[in-house]
């Protein structure tokens, strides 16, 4: 092993020289390929943020949902829940306002465009139908007449008595309560149905346009035959991307928010939710910029050189460009997880560059000239960055074992990105440093040095006043939270820059003073994390994806509490028999199942709807509104004739509910928002209910097939998949990283010793989340291997350096001291840069990202503590020699200091 390591060390030492010999060619090649990648990024990038995209096309949950959509259509509607300022949706003023909004949205072409300067009117073309209290109708049988009058007449009643009567009548409409208005009359909904999901793809050419195509002669001869082998054109519908939803949501909002003086609005539904996700992306862009600023600022301050700021950034940016470019050239659509990949590449790239630069600066400080320092720097850290690349890539690539497509893509993208960061650090960074490199100590001071000197020279009072002004400016421009965070970043950086040498110098004696105490402290922390991890609740809940004060969270809560809920489940029924859905026994079973669901799960199920509701309603109406006829008739002929009415009146509604040959239908269940864990239990119970209710019908319908699908089902399957795959992949990642460490350190003991400081940060997030009852959702689950990957980097640098020094000095004390001093600074810098950069993400409204930022950052800082205190403590206690013979194991830092 030693020989391999030695020859590798030589290769890395020669690498800068070798690359510099072909400087122009390398630069030209990289530029051309980078332009190609950039072209791909700008022309091919397509985001697929939908939940469906997480499941493979052949996944049973996807198959069921696709089948459902093919048969009954998608349902991309916006539910605009509103509450009037007067608290009564049935007051004259509120009814008048909702009439106006409904009118505005239905007839948006008539609006005065000058009043809505920012509206993209084309977007409103997506509105298909608007329903609200203003235009919903009530069916009644008055004498021998069937009436279908508006619930709320166009001419609003003026006296209080009539308004009260209207309210009573409305609350008497079971199908509308909780769907269009709440039982207490405080909330109501405007349903805006859209054409998203039903627009054929661009360039779709109907088969009837083929030249020379004609109607079969049977049409003219009144003899309509059929051919089962005729080729039926499958219409492909446009995918709706997030931006389309966002643009529509923005235009829609501009129209209804014109009435925000009268109503408070809480929009829910896919277009609205996706629109708000776009806001989150926009916020991420701001936080991302802030993160890059922190990265840059710290690089500049730590190295006091502008080239030390720019070149790592260029190196990392190109890694990201190539990673992104290659992915979009190979994959159709990428998910929002690209944000995580970019973060990881940043973290790894910065670590690689900081270690190289730190070593380079160290040699320059020791008086070496540029080329020699460059060669020595790569010789010193080359192996370590190769190893960190391999371990991080291995840690992330195990996620590719997941069954979820975007996670697989994420795993490959990320591990590839990590290798790219290594590649650019080896190939590009030496060239960049050659083009423009930091000045040596004895040369002219950099701007950072000058500023530093200037700051030191001013009086403390003035320092304080400047600090206060800067603090106030930061608070004012970034808000209290982010501003306070930035002040903390500056203060911490100031302290580290001024005291890093003292801190690192005191570490060895501090550890030697109480190694067992340190060990016990970390062991307790680890035990606590493990305990916390056992308590963790794996649960993805839409309402908990955003912070509590986010509009979406508020909207979901209000809809759940006052209306029938935001989630939907579909129970697909396939009788495999033409006209099967007209069977009385079957419809009775459907009706029974609905009652079972509504009565058995009142806290979850808001309302249910199916063909049975239509049949019962129409039956009652056709029988003089006699409530005794609110039931499924016994004869199939009666059912058929009742549905005849429905079909004639609104074929689209009918088609949304039952197939053209009446063999398939579905029960829609509106449910309140729950976490995926509770859904799973609910699903199991419903499956049992279905079996019990439809069991007896098997003799009549031998092929009867009943499936549960809908957004809830997909979410549940997805969360379950992630939970399963994640645990396995995390364990696998730990194993692979341990193996790599054992092999490279040439010692089982050393490898295990190296793994413990990595396991603590990796378990920390799980542990804390378990202890504080924060549910582990799909986003947060992914950070463990990433944290492991990043944490392991510093440990590898530390352990590799320790081992090399041990071979050289044959003294544990010298090797440890050198490792703390030499690697400690670089590790401290990378921790500061990555940890503080990640921490910015904690301010995201999207909790998935906020948790990644917060726990990721904490783990990185804990990893630093592990490297500085736990590893030395273990070395002092266990005195590992990694197979190096004749080692002096005596340690006495305290005396050395004294």
């Amino acid at each position, binding site marked *: 092993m030693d020989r391999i390591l030695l020859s590798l060390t030589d290769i890395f030492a020669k690498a800068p020289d070798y690359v510099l010999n072909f400087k122009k060619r390398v630069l030209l090649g990289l530029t051309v390929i980078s332009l190609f990648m950039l072209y791909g990024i700008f022309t091919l990038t397509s985001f697929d943020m939908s939940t469906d995209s997480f499941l493979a096309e052949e996944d049973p949950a996807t198959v069921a949902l696709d089948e459902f959509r093919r048969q009954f259509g998608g349902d991309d509607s916006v539910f605009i829940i509103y509450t009037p300022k007067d608290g009564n949706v049935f007051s004259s003023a509120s009814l008048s306002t909702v009439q106006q909004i409904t009118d505005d949205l239905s007839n948006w072409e008539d609006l005065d465009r000058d009043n809505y300067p920012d509206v993209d009117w084309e977007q409103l073309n997506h509105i298909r139908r608007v329903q609200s209290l203003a235009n919903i109708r009530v069916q009644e049988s008055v004498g021998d007449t069937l009436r*279908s009058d508006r619930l709320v007449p166009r001419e609003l009643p003026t006296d209080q008595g009539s308004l009260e009567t209207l309210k009573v009548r409305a609350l008497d409409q079971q199908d509308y309560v909780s769907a269009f208005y709440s039982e207490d009359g405080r909330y109501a909904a405007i349903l805006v149905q859209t054409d998203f999901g039903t627009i054929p793809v661009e360039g779709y050419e109907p088969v009837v346009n083929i030249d020379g195509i004609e109607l079969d002669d049977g049409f003219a001869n009144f003899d309509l035959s059929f051919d089962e082998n005729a080729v039926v054109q499958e219409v492909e519908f446009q995918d709706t991307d997030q931006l389309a939803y966002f643009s529509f949501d923005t235009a829609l909002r501009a129209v209804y928010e014109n009435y925000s003086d009268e109503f408070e609005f809480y929009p829910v539904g896919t277009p609205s939710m996706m629109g708000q996700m776009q806001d989150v992306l926009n916020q991420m862009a701001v936080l991302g910029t802030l993160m890059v600023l922190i990265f840059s600022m710290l690089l500049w301050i730590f190295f006091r050189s502008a080239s030390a700021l720019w070149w790592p950034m260029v190196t990392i940016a190109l890694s990201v460009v190539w990673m992104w470019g290659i992915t979009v050239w190979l994959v159709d659509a990428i998910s929002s997880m690209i944000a995580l990949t970019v973060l990881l590449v940043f973290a790894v790239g910065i670590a690689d560059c900081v270690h190289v630069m730190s070593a380079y600066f160290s040699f320059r400080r020791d008086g070496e000239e540029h080329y020699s320092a460059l060669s020595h720097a790569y010789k010193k850290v080359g192996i370590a960055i190769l190893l960190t690349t391999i371990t991080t890539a291995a840690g992330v690539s195990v996620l590719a074992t997941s069954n979820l497509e975007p996670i697989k893509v994420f795993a490959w993208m990320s591990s590839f990105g990590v290798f790219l960061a290594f590649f650019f650090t080896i190939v590009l960074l030496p060239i960049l440093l050659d083009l423009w490199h930091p000045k040596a100590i004895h040369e002219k001071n950099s701007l950072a040095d000058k500023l530093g000197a200037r700051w030191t020279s001013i009086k403390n009072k003035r320092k304080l006043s400047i600090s206060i002004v800067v603090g106030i400016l930061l608070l004012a421009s970034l808000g209290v939270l982010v501003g306070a965070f930035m002040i903390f970043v500056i203060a911490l950086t100031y302290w580290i820059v001024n005291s890093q040498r003292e801190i690192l110098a005191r570490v060895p004696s501090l550890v030697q003073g109480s190694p067992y105490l340190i060990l016990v402290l970390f062991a307790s922390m680890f035990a606590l994390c493990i305990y916390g991890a056992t308590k963790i609740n794996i649960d993805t809940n839409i309402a908990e994806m955003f912070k509590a004060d986010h509009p979406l969270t508020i909207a979901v809560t209000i809809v759940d509490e006052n209306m029938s809920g935001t989630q939907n489940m579909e129970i697909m029924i396939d009788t495999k028999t033409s006209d099967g859905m007209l069977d009385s026994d079957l419809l009775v079973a459907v009706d029974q199942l609905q009652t079972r669901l509504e009565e058995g799960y009142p806290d979850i199920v808001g309302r249910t709807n199916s063909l049975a509701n239509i049949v019962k309603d129409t039956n009652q109406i056709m029988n003089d509104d006699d409530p005794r006829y609110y039931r499924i008739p016994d004869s199939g002929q009666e059912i058929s004739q009742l549905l005849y009415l429905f079909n004639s009146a609104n074929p689209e509604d009918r088609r949304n509910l039952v197939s053209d040959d009446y063999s398939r239908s579905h029960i829609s269940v509106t449910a309140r928002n729950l976490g995926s864990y509770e859904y799973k239990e609910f699903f199991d119970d419903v499956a049992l209910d279905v079996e019990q209710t439809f069991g007896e019908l098997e003799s009549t319908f031998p092929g009867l097939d009943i499936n549960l699908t809908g957004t809830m089902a997909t979410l549940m399957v997805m969360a379950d998949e992630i939970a399963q795959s994640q645990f396995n992949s995390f364990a696998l990642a730990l194993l692979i990283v341990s193996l790599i460490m054992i092999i490279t350190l040439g010692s089982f003991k050393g490898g295990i010793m190296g793994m413990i400081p990595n396991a603590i940060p990796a378990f920390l997030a799980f542990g804390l989340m378990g202890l504080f009852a924060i549910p582990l959702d799909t986003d947060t689950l992914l950070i463990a291997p990433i944290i492991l990957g990043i944490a392991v980097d510093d440990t590898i640098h530390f352990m590799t350096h320790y081992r090399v020094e041990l071979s050289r000095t044959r003294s544990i004390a010298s090797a440890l001291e050198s490792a703390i001093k030499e690697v400690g600074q670089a590790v401290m810098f990378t921790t500061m840069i990555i940890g503080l950069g990640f921490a910015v993400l904690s301010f995201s409204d999207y909790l998935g990202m906020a948790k990644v930022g917060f726990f990721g950052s904490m783990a990185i800082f804990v990893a630093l503590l592990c490297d500085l205190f736990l590893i030395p403590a273990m070395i002092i206690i266990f005195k590992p020699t990694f197979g190096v013979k004749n080692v002096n194991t005596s340690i006495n830092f305290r005396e050395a200091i004294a």
Partner: protein
Amino acid sequence: MKLKSTLGIIGTALLVTFFPHASGQELTGFEIMKRSDDAVRSTNDSSFIRMQLSSCKFGVTQGRITCAERARVKSLESVAKNYGPELKDTKSVTITLEPAAERGIAMLSYAYEDSERDNETWLYLSAMGRVKRIAAGNSEEETEPASLFGSEFTTEDTDTGKLEEYTINLLGETTQGNRDVWQVEMIPSADRARKTRYSRVVEYIDKERFVSLRTEMYDQYEREVKRMMASRVELVNDIWMARSLTIMNLVTNRLSNMAFVEIYTDLNIEDDFLTQRTLTDAAYRETELEKLRSQLN
């Protein structure tokens, strides 16, 4: 569900639509459509029609459009007579013969020219033996296009009246199925646009026979979503008409064919036949229909 408000339209829409157009030489789009429309109205009177309404998913086999599954077929009989000083009011009754589950469902409609007067419709569901009057009420506002007996034909596809609600342009002349046709474009006015799913309709009117041989319906994205094709254009009682109309939904790939299996006009129809009694009294209905059938030859 707005079945009661929309059913009122169905009965009359059937009758005012598929009748032949009178011949003429005018060249403006409006005049061409007006002549067709007037012809429809004038040929509405005292008619008996037996028709079949078939719906299926369609596909292509050997360059021909055909049903890809067994079509669901409805057989209907319809009797209509015009009233009023200018014979612009219509009373009609439509009876379902097939499928068996719907046999006997009947609809009686009175459509009045006077827009102040509400149209009237009565529906009889045979399985329940009940007649219900369907209040047309606010049928003119926000009408969702209703389906004709659950087929792909909607009231909107068949309602050719109210030409003044459209901007009508004569796009040019071309041929359709070896016949010379005018290509006439109809763009709904702002008011009409609220009631229609189509942003534009293009008619291909036979220059000699004044029969619409093809109709293309476009959505708000200028995409053709439906196409209606006429076939078996024949001279019936000295008037050209298409006896087979096929509408294809180009998004769902389903079609419906309306075949006028038998058509007779200028019959002597008793006024009493166009009353509720025909709906409920099967014996009376059959006797009266027999009387009509005897006139057919």
